[in-house]
Structures are given as structure tokens and as C-alpha cells.
């Protein structure tokens, strides 16, 4: 929990700093938008987190997000390029396909013993290609479909804007179910055991293949849910939607305390990690310093948006570096303490004083 707590404190500090520099950061429209972004990232980060805790990786998630939206657009959009079926057909079909993709990748990884990195890398490219083929390189708009209100509307309207966007409600639901499954069920225990020691899990009679396959199904399934939200949010689908999102999910999971070696991480941590990613992203736009220049004209200094990736990259590196340094310092302290306790034990009845080097007469002879 140390990592989660540290990240949470960092997140709060960051929000306060941003709010002081620019009060609009916590204004209704920016808060609403940031919460929506956090929610959509968080939904699929939790899914990828399940895979990461078993020691696996899911690189296909961004493509799954894209394909889900493309399928809904193709089947249910009333606009040009869409087939105009009911959303009650489009959404279930898209989610079912996402689950099937997860199942297929999970089975390839567990039954054929293929490496998760390679399988999901292949999946990433292949699924992206399918999206591209469906939209034929262009875009399909949702027009004025009621589907758009899913991500853009919400509960309790103030000044015409919702206070609680629907994606946030979905996110809270995913957090609740995810926490329950990962931290309170037998299945969750198995997820950790596989990440901690796969052989031990195997020899404990756990159906490792089944559990692992299920984590890929969960990942792709939540990717599908996030995909529905993104499609509604954007309002039109092209092949571009979701590109590189798998990296955001992995970064969020790692920021939140997951180890890519497996066995570590919590749902709460992934939530904090997702929030961190989005607040940084948003903060780069919001952060400002007001000053007067030499001639006394008030000016505003802002971060260069071209620095976005530099800042996100630096934050991720700094987080893992800090974590590792803490590890090393703690390990060193443990070693010193162990050494001290050895010295601290009372010497045997005829024992020599602590720092002396006992040498027997024979030693001198040799």
C-alpha cells in the first residue's frame, strides 16, 4: 500500500498546485471533463491490471477499444456509413466481440504457451487492421444518435451540465466489482498467487490456465466497456481511436503500484494511477504563471504542449526510480540491522569481545 499512498498524496498535491495556479482547474467544466477522462482510462486500466498482476501483459487493449467503437458505429449509426440497427444490437455485439478477442488471446497464451507480449502485439496490429478495414480508412459519424449522451450526459444537471457523468458511474461500478473480485474472492487470490509463483499455484492444484485466460477476458471486456464510452464521447469513429492506449493503461497500473513481474498491485492503486495520468495530461494545459513583463504588461506563462510526453515520461520514470531507491535503502537498513543484531547477541560464556578476531594457536603455526 506504500506506493498507492505515496501516489495519492502526490496526486492531491498536484491538484492543489494546479488549482492555485489556475482556479479554472476545479471549475465545473474542467472538473467534469477530467473526471470523465479519468473514468474512461480507469475502466480499462483495471482490466489490464488483472493481467499485469498475473505477470502477463495486454498490448491489444487500445485496438480493442477502437474496434468496439467502430463496430457500434458500423452497426448502429444512423449517419452515412452506418447500417442503422438498434444500439441494443450494436453495443452487445461489440462487447461480445471484445470478450471473444480476450478469450482467443487468453487461450493462445495459456494452451499453446505463447508469450503474452507476442500474442497481444499480434492482436494489437490485427485488430487495428480490422478497424481500418471496417471504416475503409475514413470515419463513420454517429450523427445525432442518442448514443452520444452516454458519455456526454450524466446525473444532476447544474447550468445545463451534468454533475456526475455516466462514465464516472460506470467507473465506480467497475471499481466496486473489481475490488470485490480481486481482493475478496478465491479467484482474486489465485490471480496474485500466479503472479507471485506460478509453479506454486500449479502445484497447489489451481487451474492456472483457466484463471489466466479469464484475466485476458476481463481485460478485453473492460476494454470493450471503455470503447463504448470513448465512441460516445468522440461521436465519430476512425481507425485512430485508442492508439497507444495500452501504454497509458500500463503506465497507470505501474504508477499505481503494479509490478510488471506480477504479484503486486491493487484496484485502488490503479484508480490513483489512472487519475495521475489524466491530471498530468490536463495539468499541462491548465498550469499557468501570471507575471508582469519589464514594461509592466501582465502576461501569462504556460507549459509548452509539446512537452506533454516529456513530462509524462519523466513522471513515470521518477515514480519507479523513487520506489526502487526506497527498496534499496530499506534492504540496506535491514542488512545493517541484521548485522547489528549479530553483534548484539551476548557472547558465549567464554566468548571474546565483539570486534576481536579469534585466532587459535594452530593458525599461527600455519
Amino acid at each position, binding site marked *: 500500500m506504500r506506493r498507492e499512498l505515496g501516489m495519492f498524496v502526490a496526486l492531491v498535491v498536484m491538484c492543489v498546485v494546479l488549482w492555485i495556479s489556475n482556479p479554472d482547474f476545479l471549475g465545473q467544466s474542467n472538473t467534469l471533463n477530467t473526471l470523465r477522462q479519468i473514468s474512461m482510462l480507469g475502466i480499462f486500466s483495471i482490466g489490464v491490471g488483472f493481467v499485469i498482476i498475473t505477470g502477463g501483459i495486454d498490448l491489444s487493449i487500445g485496438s480493442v477499444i477502437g474496434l468496439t467503437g467502430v463496430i457500434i458505429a458500423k452497426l448502429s449509426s444512423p449517419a452515412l456509413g452506418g447500417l442503422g440497427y438498434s444500439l441494443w444490437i450494436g453495443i452487445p455485439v461489440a462487447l461480445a466481440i471484445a470478450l471473444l478477442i480476450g478469450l482467443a488471446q487468453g487461450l493462445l497464451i495459456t494452451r499453446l504457451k505463447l508469450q503474452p507480449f507476442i500474442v497481444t502485439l499480434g492482436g494489437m496490429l490485427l485488430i487495428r487492421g480490422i478497424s481500418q478495414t471496417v471504416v475503409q480508412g475514413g470515419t463513420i459519424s454517429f450523427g445525432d444518435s442518442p448514443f452520444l449522451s452516454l458519455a456526454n450526459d450524466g446525473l444532476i444537471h447544474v447550468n445545463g451540465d451534468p454533475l456526475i457523468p455516466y462514465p464516472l458511474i460506470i467507473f465506480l461500478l467497475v471499481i466496486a466489482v473489481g475490488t470485490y473480485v480481486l481482493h475478496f474472492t478465491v479467484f482474486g487470490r489465485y490471480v496474485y498467487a500466479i503472479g507471485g509463483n506460478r509453479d506454486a499455484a500449479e502445484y497447489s492444484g489451481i487451474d492456472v490456465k483457466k484463471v489466466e485466460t479469464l484475466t485476458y477476458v476481463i481485460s478485453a471486456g473492460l476494454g470493450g466497456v471503455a470503447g463504448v464510452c470513448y465512441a460516445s464521447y468522440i461521436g465519430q469513429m476512425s481507425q485512430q481511436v485508442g492508439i497507444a492506449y495500452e501504454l497509458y493503461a500500463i503506465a497507470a497500473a505501474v504508477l499505481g503500484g503494479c509490478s510488471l513481474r506480477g504479484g503486486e498491485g491493487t484496484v485502488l492503486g490503479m484508480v490513483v494511477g489512472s487519475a495521475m495520468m489524466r491530471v498530468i495530461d490536463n495539468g499541462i494545459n491548465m498550469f499557468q504563471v501570471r507575471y508582469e513583463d519589464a514594461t509592466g504588461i501582465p502576461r501569462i506563462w504556460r507549459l509548452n504542449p509539446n512537452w506533454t510526453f516529456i513530462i509524462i515520461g519523466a513522471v513515470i520514470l521518477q515514480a519507479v526510480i523513487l520506489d526502487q531507491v526506497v527498496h534499496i535503502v530499506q534492504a540496506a537498513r535491514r542488512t545493517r540491522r541484521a548485522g547489528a543484531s549479530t553483534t548484539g547477541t551476548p557472547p558465549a560464556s567464554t566468548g571474546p569481545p*565483539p570486534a576481536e578476531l579469534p585466532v587459535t594457536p594452530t593458525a599461527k603455526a600455519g
Partner: protein
Amino acid sequence: MSATPSSTLLTMSGITKRFPGVIALAGVSLTLNPGEVLALMGENGAGKSTLMKVLGGAYLPDEGEIFIEEKPVVLADVREAKRLGIALIHQELMLARNLDIAANIFLGNEGGGMMNVLRRGEMNAKAASLLDRVGLHLPPTTPVSTLSAGQMQMVEIAKALSMNARIIIMDEPTSSLTAGESEQLFKIIRQLRSEQIGIIYISHRLEEVLNLADRITVLRDGRYVGELARADATHEKIVSMMVGRELSNQYFPLKHEKPLGEPLLVVKDLLVPGAPATASFTAHRGEILGFAGLVGSGRTELMETVFGVTPALAGTMTLEGKRYAPASPRDAIDSGVYLAPEDRKRHGLVLPMSVAENTSLPNVATYSRFGILDRAKERKVADAEVARLRTKTPNILQKVVNLSGGNQQKVVLGKWLAMSPKILILDEPTRGIDVGAKAEIYRHMAALADQGITILMVSSEMEEVIGMSDRVVVMHERRIKGVLLRESLTQQRIATLMTGRTEGNEAA
């Protein structure tokens, strides 16, 4: 232990298991009574592990029958074996270090399906009483990552008990335990025996087996050789059954008395990181200097400092009269000091690489011209080392992973011999190596010392220390407690120093 055996707990009869190209087990039989400790012995590759994997449900035998309490059973998988009360405790402990004790004890046995809620309270309560039974007085919520090897072993046993195991198989359980932890384990084993649990105990350590076992079954080359009751068992009998020949005379090469050479490595007031005191010793040219001590006595750490893995905090070393202060293994290697580590599979060899590639590894630069590897030269050197050490490998292009433990150790030796060492540090040179190969390694060590190479040998086997060393440095709790000369080497003197008592204060 002939206390009215009501019925046989386990009978395995005519078990045969074939793998492509090898017959791992050829009609092996074995019986186990309730409340009995049966030692299963044999050299590496004798078929012990395969037999136990058959019993644990990991392998299905090609032929043969298994009876539990005289009823025929089919051990189709790990689950079925567990259900029938068979628990297998692996040599490399099978625990998830990221989970706590209770979670590990009930792993795979939490009750209910995968979507059921974990009953933590109930598990913790049950775990507490199981821990009490095995004498591990720690809260069940203790993370396993903080436990010692001995404590982990107890968690494994608690896990076996949680499944109401009637047959517990222990594979080399003491290989990573300290003497105190081993004693605790033996106490628990005796207690389990009194509870009518049958125990199959696999070990290479003759002393332990003679102490603990009610009966001893010996396998060789996948076949049943015979069985000894405790009363009839002696060192010599067991070893001769295991290797099929009397070893005693040729076990250790005869040492010809020779005076100590000039001092080669002089270590003075060396402070190893984490050690409570400095260490000083001198190694002479052509000497085998033994380092005795219990697990954790700091021998490996001292050797790692001499080899430059963890540079010293203070003190000096001189090699051939010149200052020697290795900051990395590279420095040590450049000075002619080489280390064959304890865990050769992890630190000594690159398993998926060939014998030839492993041989040239530390010195690849000298096998290349303008950065291009001279494979012909590499092969020539590897061939020479294979011939010198009589390494059993089909050819030098064989991957090291496919060799037996003894032959892997020879590849490690060969890799250093190809570089004409001054000092060879051998950490547990014969660990996990079968008796026949051991004798061969000993012969090579003696021959190398005769050629003027100094060998620093860390060993936990008393026989090896006494049989091979010219002098012995004894360590206890990371301090050097004394240095013994060859003529004064007795098991008792070493043991006295090893347990931290000072010379002249001999209790036993």
C-alpha cells in the same frame, strides 16, 4: 518400527515410466506403512524424483499399480493425489512470496468455487492451529517473503497437514536449512510419525537418513536396488547400494604430504559488508584451503568479496605480494582469481548455451580476431577441457542444460582451467552431484592443487572438508573462529568451532 502395521499405507508395484529415449523407471516397487519414515535414496538420475512425481500425480506411469490402504487408485493429476491424502513438498519450496502464511497454506484449497468470497477469518484461525502443530509461532498474516528457509519449510508442512495428508513426501528438505532449523524439522517429522502419518524422505545426506529413517529404499538407474532396515544400515552399505561399488578407498584421493608453498593470497583485516568483524587468512600456493561453517556463517559472502562481487569496506588483500583490491568480478578474473559459485545453474553457467560457448564465456575477447569470434579456437579449447576433465557430453555443442549436475560442474571447472587460474574458489563444489561424479571432482581438485593452483573450497559437508583440505578456516556467524591444520583436523574440533564455541571449551 514394527509396531503392528495394521495395513500398508501405500504400495507402489512395478512402476515403469518411459520418456522419449530413456526409461526413467523400470518396474520399481515401494511400500510405506503408517507412522513410518521411509528414506528414498539414490544418485542423481536414479529415478527418485520421477517416482515421487508419479506419486504426486504429476506423471502417469506407463505400467504398474498403486494401492492406498490396499485399495487400487489411479493418480490422474495433482488434485487427485491431494484428494487421496498425498502431499509433495518440493525441494525448491512452492510458496507465493507475495502472499501471507495463511493464504499459502490454503492456496488451491480455499473452499468453494472461484467466485466464492475468501473466508479470511476462518482460514487464519485454522492456519494458527496448524502453525502451532508445526511449532511455527508466527501470526498467520505474516508475509511469506519475510520468512527464513526453515520457516517456509514449516509452512509447507502446515499446508500438507491442512489437506489431511496421510502421506507426506519431502524432497531434500534440509538442503537450504541451518542446523538449528534442520533439528526443528526432524522434531516435527518425528511428531508426524507418531500421528501415524507416512513420510517419504529424500535426501543425499547420509547422517540425516541414518538418524531419521525407519527403513531405507535405494534406487539406481531407475531400478529398485534394495531395502535396508535402520538397524542394518551403515554409511558404506548405503553408498555401495547407491553406486553399485565400494567407494570407501578411492573416495578421496590420497594426499601426498607436502610442505605448504609460499603465501599466495594474504587477506588482512578484510571487512565484508554486513559482517560484524574483520577477517584475516592466508592461502598458500598449491593448497586446498577449506572453509567450514554452517549455512549463513558468512563463507559465501567472504568469497564474494575476494572475487570482487561485493567489494570490501576495509582491509587489504595481496596476491603474489602485489596489492589486490578487486572492485568487480572482472578485476578478479583479470588477476587470475576465479569463482565457481554455489548455485551453478544461476551464477555459474548460461544453461541454454553450449559447452563450448560456456567455456569461452569469461574470456571471449581472446577467442576473437578483430571482434569476430574464432569458433575453431573456441572448440579446440573446449574439446581439450572436456577431455581433461572427462566431461560426459555427446559433443561440445551440446547445450549445458542437458548435462547432469556433475558434468555441469565440470564445465564450470573447465571454463576456469582454460584460463590458467592462480586461485580457484569453489563454493560447495559437489552440491547436488552424485557420489560417483563427486569422487571424480575430488581427483581433479587434488590434481590442480598439485599443479600449484590454490583452491579455496567452501563446503558444508564435513567429510569433504576433512578429506580434501590442507587447512581449514572455520567460520561462525560471519566471523573466523579459527584455522585448523591438516594433522589436527577432526570432525569434533571443526564442529566445536562451527557452533561458535571456542577451542579448548569442548563440551561433547
